[in-house]
């Protein structure tokens, strides 16, 4: 900051607003230059702030991966579990204490490779939680292997000549499994991401936000797509906002168009609502609702 200015100004926000949500003692974080994960954390922090939730009641659960490290940097009750198992951990937590707001924050490999079953089952049950997936189209933490999101022809270390393994269309999978809120944005769309996260955590039930995010170190470099900034510009130029799009239609190709937007927003009773209503029906007064 130019010196002349600082001298004469009051500085009302000398602290980066995200910092109040971070464990600053753990900075710098491990993410690479130009990695988009940190950007998503900014959005998440703003969304949380705007949501006016009591932050003491927010619990973050991550699996394992570069994105999985998010939990460790957030100054919230945060749980860095095992690879793929953030959702069932969060399910246990949410069912055991309905007062908690559960946010699962993890990577595409974690949530949809090893963790795919938990995702579809939690969505089916409509357990009240928000799942944020930072989709960098690759396994970052382990060094750039192909993920079930990697577009065909893109290279990863395990498909070094280009992948021929057709990827999932995540919003479609979420939609067809029963998620009540489904949106996709990229790290370029910081304001949309913020809004989407806010909407998702304010939605009762299983909500899902996918954020396409650059992994310069492993995805872009190997695929000769430049650095993080190049990916961001690709997102900027090739994203098409199509709110309400049929999720069937939003699959992604290698460096093709990215359909973003809020795709699904619907009402469904949560697992706990269904349970309480059903058991009250059956037992009337005798039913002892779970106090916790």
């Amino acid at each position, binding site marked *: 900051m130019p010196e002349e200015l600082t001298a004469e100004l009051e500085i009302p926000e000398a602290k980066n607003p995200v910092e109040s949500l971070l464990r600053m003692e753990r900075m710098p974080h491990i993410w690479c230059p130009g990695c988009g994960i940190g950007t998503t954390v900014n959005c998440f922090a703003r969304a949380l702030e705007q949501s006016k939730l009591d932050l*003491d009641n927010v619990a973050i659960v991550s699996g394992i991966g570069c994105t999985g490290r998010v939990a*460790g940097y957030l100054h919230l009750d945060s749980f860095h579990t095992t690879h793929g198992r953030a959702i*069932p*951990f969060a*399910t246990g937590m949410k069912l055991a204490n309905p007062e*908690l707001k559960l946010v699962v924050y993890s990577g595409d490999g974690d949530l949809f490779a090893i963790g795919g079953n*938990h995702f579809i089952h939690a969505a089916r049950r409509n357990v009240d939680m928000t799942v944020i997936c930072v989709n960098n189209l690759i396994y970052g933490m382990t060094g750039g292997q192909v993920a079930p999101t990697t577009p065909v022809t893109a290279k990863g270390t395990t498909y070094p000549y280009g992948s021929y393994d057709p990827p999932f269309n995540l919003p479609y999978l979420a939609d067809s499994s029963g998620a009540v809120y489904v949106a996709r944005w990229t790290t370029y769309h910081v304001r949309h991401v913020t809004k989407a996260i806010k909407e998702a955590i304010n939605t009762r039930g299983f909500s899902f936000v996918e954020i396409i995010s650059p992994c310069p170190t492993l995805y872009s470099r190997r695929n000769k797509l430049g650095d993080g900034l190049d990916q961001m510009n690709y997102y900027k130029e090739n994203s098409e906002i199509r709110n309400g799009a049929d999720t069937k239609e939003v699959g992604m190709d290698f460096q093709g168009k990215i359909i973003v937007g809020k795709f699904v927003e619907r009402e469904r009773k949560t697992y706990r609502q269904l349970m309480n209503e059903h058991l009250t029906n059956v037992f009337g007064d005798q039913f*002892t609702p779970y106090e916790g």
Partner: protein
Amino acid sequence: MNADKKAVLTGAHFIDGDHAACEGAIAAGCKFVAGYPITPSTEVVERIAARFPLVGGIFVQMEDEIASSIAIQGAVWAGKKAMTVTSGPGFSLMMEHIGFAAITETPCVFINVQRGGPSTGLPTLPAQADMMQARWGSHGDYEIIAIVPNSPQECFDLTIRAFNLAEEYRVPVLVMMDECVGHMTEKVEIPEADKIEVVERKFTEKPPGEYRMFDTNGSMVPEMVKAGAGYRIHLTGLTHDDRGYPAMSPVVHNKMLRRLVDKVLLNEEKIRHIEEDQVEGADVVVVSYGITSRVVLPAVNKARKDGIKVGHIRLITVWPFPESYIRELAKKVSAFVVPELNLGQIVYEVERCAAGNAVTQLVSHAGGAVHSPEEIYDEIKGVLGHA
């Protein structure tokens, strides 16, 4: 602390071991059970599912055992007591999360109703062949506590004890039942709630600023907090320091691991739970556990009638293994006879601790049924050349 009056089914019941274990869990204050059906353990969760709506608890049938074994840990960090229940194949799938519970010091209970293995094996018949798995089945070094009931009554009693030990030491506690005990129906006396001692979780009294997650303050077991209490904790399965933060350092790893292990091993005498019968002055001592301990009795009685000085010890807590106890005993007796419903597991520990001071004789039964008392009798006679 005593058990919750409303939840405890005080009185005498004629129920099977699975159902008794369910009642034990409820009496111990368990409020969250996640499970996935598998013979011969399912009756535990079936009863839980029937009972919980009336006593205030949540049962959820998860998509698999992996999910169940981590969901309970989420519930624990939400402040509840929780358990899951399974049998061999499901137990194998839970191994990763036993390690997670160990490293995160998450108090929780796993019930494994053992059946014939490996793989699908003999789903409806008993075995005791997951005993070593209970200790060694997850990768890396860690210690757990494993206890083995031999009757429905003990399924009740020891499930309570399991929950209590879990809280006391912040370890996963494994209740290693078997198909025979699980499906056997006998009288189970459930005491009045205020006669049941229940160990409550030791939540810290420190305010958020002062609390450090894995700082034990000189004791071996750190105090807990729960999510939503304002502590803003971080929990990780990575090697971590006192604050709970990842630290990729051999030094931190060493410190963390040693305490995880020591809190169990150095407290072995306190955790120890052994039933002794005429061990004083015995020549031969039978070392048994679980259902096999009952099959031993007719054999021991018969041998005694033959004039053989035979003692019997029953390991109720099998892990941590009562190492010093067996070491001392080995110096006084000539032989150990170890009957197991497997091809030899706990006998390895007995033999090791005997250290050549006493002969160790396995009486192996592959499972699917229990031993005949004669098999055991023959070894008692044979081991010292009485035959």
